[in-house]
């Protein structure tokens, strides 16, 4: 007899029916296990299978803080959240609809961070119920009761038990069984699923592959026979050629497609995996990753390469950016093209090394002493992580200076399908010019309108010059004169204004006027739009605008803002809250983008910013916007 789905206790959730599948627009599934039990692989594969079937997906990693945390501990929870939808999915959403948990402790860790809500369906391995250890049994049983009390629909599943039929190492097989079970619940195409398994275990040999196929089938069959709930998430039609990857991989691929041959880095979470990916494939395009002795050497090496004609990229996170500060100033001063990717994590200092924050905007902009105008971009999606590498290199060369690309831990580890890019030869770096340089043209022949100039490359006869970080004239000769200093500062600054001229105003999501405009940057795009859309459905006059260029800004912002009664940013960084003791308009420290926009537009731009160490869920944004919109009325 089929095990019945647990009685629904909440109106908000459609009751899982017995036979026919319930159609849903989107669903959030989590798989959590002890670190090392492979829930991450399970989740990623479930995401890929869904993407292949035409669903929109977004996956995020659930990562423990330690390398090998103890088993059955809250701190050890490892896994994945997968949000699948019938439209492109842009963020990880709010609370989970379905959770597969390999033990009750890791489930607790998800409850602690608010990932579940009453009504969430929980599939929990029941192996602990028959543990030889009394404490384990008791802990398990108490937890199940606890979970039910909290309103979750708990189904106890024979995860380890059934796996033992196929493998002696159930800890390494449970994830595939769970994948099979989910495939049944979500009606996934088992041909696609088995294909993925074959791909995944290709290098491990036939035996391993077969065991895993057995396991996925076992999970699938068990669910078909024993579970009654089925969900159906319709596919996006006609998706075209899509790829799915995380943001750091997209950066790596983008670096290659942009024709940059050198990535010079020093390991730092959460940036390093981009260079891991590059390290594994870079040689196929003739590139190489230089792991330097520290971050200073990493950027110095990159600048040396750039100076010699091979524009390089350096990839880091906050603490590494801090160390690169002095060299960034040199790149500005001596106008050396360079791409600097900063994958933001929680700060200040070592902070929350594996978690997301958008806290490095002001540091990117202002860290180098003296006036250091530079270009700053922030991709909003994983697809943009790829394409912005191409853009960044182009801008670095055209505007002859460093370009900082700010991503974050959310983009870095999140996965999302997007249109497969078609790399173009014109994106690649041109071969180094070795023809003579017209000697009458100085190495810094600034166009006095635009500040732009071309640079000679070692090897070009007639172009010999000595690059220097000292104040210098057009010939790159050291110059102490007041007027030269004033002029060259203006030349370097001017380039930003010139770049702005070539940009278009950002598109407004929603109506071009209304009660409230939400301004965002970076990875908050998807969640903010989702929140805005929900409110718009409810009749609120709210729109949003997303900034991708942070230095210079895209043009037309003030004009856009002025059409709204209120303007606010939503950011993942710290700002003072006026409701807190001692805080007032005079001393409030605003959120980072808000600060820049206030300075520029002189409009009273408020913000809602938080530092939870996790992406802002659309529901939380929605709630805050609703509060403000309602307070208005």
């Amino acid at each position: 007899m089929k095990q019945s789905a647990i009685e629904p206790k909440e109106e908000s959730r459609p009751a899982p029916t017995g036979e026919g599948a319930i159609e849903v627009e989107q669903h959030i599934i989590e798989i959590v296990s002890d670190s090392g039990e492979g829930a991450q692989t399970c989740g990623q594969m479930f995401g890929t299978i869904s993407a292949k079937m035409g669903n929109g997906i977004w996956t995020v990693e659930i990562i423990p803080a330690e390398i090998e945390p103890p088993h059955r501990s809250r701190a050890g929870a490892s896994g994945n959240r997968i949000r699948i939808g019938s439209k492109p999915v842009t963020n990880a959403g709010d609370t989970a609809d379905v959770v597969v948990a390999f033990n009750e402790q890791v489930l607790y860790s998800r409850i602690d961070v608010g990932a579940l809500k009453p009504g969430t369906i929980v599939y929990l391995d029941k192996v602990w119920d028959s543990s030889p250890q009394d404490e384990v049994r008791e802990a398990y049983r108490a937890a199940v009761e606890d979970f039910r009390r909290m309103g979750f629909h708990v189904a106890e599943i024979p995860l380890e038990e059934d796996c033992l039929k196929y493998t002696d190492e159930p800890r390494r097989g449970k994830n595939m069984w769970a994948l099979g079970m989910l495939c049944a619940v979500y009606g996934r195409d088992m041909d696609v699923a088995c294909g993925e398994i074959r791909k995944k275990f290709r290098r491990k040999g036939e035996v391993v592959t077969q065991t895993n196929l057995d396991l996925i089938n076992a999970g699938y069959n068990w669910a078909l026979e024993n579970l009654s709930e089925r969900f159906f998430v319709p596919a996006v039609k006609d998706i075209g050629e899509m790829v799915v990857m995380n943001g750091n991989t997209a950066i790596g691929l983008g670096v290659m497609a942009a024709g940059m041959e050198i990535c010079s880095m020093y390991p730092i979470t959460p940036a390093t995996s981009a260079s891991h990916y590059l390290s594994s494939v870079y040689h196929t395009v003739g590139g190489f990753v230089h792991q330097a002795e520290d971050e200073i050497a990493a950027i110095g090496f990159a600048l040396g390469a750039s100076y010699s004609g091979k524009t390089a990229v350096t990839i880091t996170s906050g603490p590494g950016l801090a160390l690169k500060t002095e060299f960034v100033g040199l790149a500005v001063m001596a106008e050396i093209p360079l791409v600097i990717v900063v994958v933001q994590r929680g700060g200040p200092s070592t902070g929350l090394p594996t978690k997301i924050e958008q806290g490095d905007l002001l540091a990117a902009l202002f860290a180098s002493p003296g006036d250091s105008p530079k270009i700053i971009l922030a991709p909003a999606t994983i697809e943009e992580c790829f394409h912005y590498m191409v853009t960044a290199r182009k801008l670095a060369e055209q505007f002859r200076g460093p370009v900082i690309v700010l991503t974050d831990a959310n983009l870095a580890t999140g996965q999302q399908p997007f249109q497969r890019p078609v790399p173009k030869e014109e994106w690649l770096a041109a071969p180094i010019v070795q023809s003579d340089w017209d000697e009458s043209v100085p190495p810094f022949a600034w166009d006095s309108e635009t500040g732009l100039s071309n640079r000679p490359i070692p090897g070009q006869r007639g172009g010999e010059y000595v690059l220097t970080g000292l104040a210098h004239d057009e010939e790159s000769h050291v110059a102490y004169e007041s007027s030269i200093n004033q002029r060259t500062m203006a030349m370097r600054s001017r380039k930003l204004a010139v770049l702005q001229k070539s940009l278009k105003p950002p598109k407004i999501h929603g109506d071009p006027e209304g009660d409230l405009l939400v301004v965002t940057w970076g990875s908050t795009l998807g969640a903010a739009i989702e929140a805005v859309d929900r409110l718009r459905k409810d009749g609120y006059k709210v729109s949003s605008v997303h900034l991708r260029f942070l230095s210079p800004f895209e043009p037309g912002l003030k004009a856009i803002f002025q059409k709204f009664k209120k303007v606010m940013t939503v950011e993942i960084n710290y700002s003072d809250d006026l409701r807190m003791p001692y805080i007032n308009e005079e001393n409030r420290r605003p959120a980072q983008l808000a600060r820049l926009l206030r300075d520029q537009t002189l409009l009273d731009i408020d913000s809602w910013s938080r530092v939870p160490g996790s992406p802002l869920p659309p529901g939380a944004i929605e709630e805050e916007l609703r509060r403000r919109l309602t307070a208005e009325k």
Partner: protein
Amino acid sequence: MYGLKKDWVLEKKPRVCVLEDYMGAEARWCPGCGDHAVLNSVQRVARDLQLAPERTVVVSGIGCSSRFPHYMKTYGFHGLHGRALPVASGIRSRRPDLDIFVVTGDGDCCAIGTAHWIHAIRYNMNMTVLLLDNNIYGLTKAQTSPTTKMTERSNTHPRGSFFVPIEPISVVLGIPNASFVAQTVDWNPPHLYETIRAGHEHRGLSFIRILQRCPHYTSHVFAEAQRDTSRILYMRHPEGINLPDAMSKIFKNQVEHDPSNISEARDLAREDAGVLPIGLFYKKPDALRYDEVTAEGLKMSAAEKIEAINNALDRFMV
């Protein structure tokens, strides 16, 4: 010559570079500063080896000595204090065709630049590194450097330094993969020249410490060694750096040292011996060169790259 550069027919006749072709801005070091002699030697080596000025890059940090590139008429990179070596390594990584010199000071290299120094030796990328060691911070006006002798006074230690000075040669000889380690003095131009030339001809990183006089701040430091050649220990060997007999004769103190013998090199490098060894301490011609790794794939065509990127992308197709 330059006037003709667009005329390719005329360019065909063999190009000969003369000393002036390597001479940049007028050197602005103090009169009598040892840096002048080093500049002169580098220019002569460049001329004698007919290095193309446009394919020669001189990289430096910050300091009196680091003004060096400005006085050459080649490409130059006068970067940040302590950071010449990473920059030079980056340049080298994809440009096997260039001739690279690095000029650094005892503060630049042995204080703020220590980490890069140690690791550059290990990377052993092909370049000639000149440490202009005047035992002082010159540009910032006389502070103790890591090589300042004990009890010497400076502006930061007006009552005399209480640090045991670092021995740059000993340090370098403690790093695996060191491939060319030599020492010379600015006041013996022939030896200076031969050392730089040998360093340049070595394939790999040649580390050359040059004891350099700073008459402005530390005029007395090398005065003895300069006056009394018996304070110098001349190391000779067929595989080493050798002066013509007539010139080497002036060194009363000589030793035969095989530059492949690292233990002996380390013993010789110890500065407590009271003599100043010059010549080649150590050479390992077959030491691993990182620049041979970094230059792999340089010749790949755009089409090949596009194909590889497509392959990489395909692995993520859904």
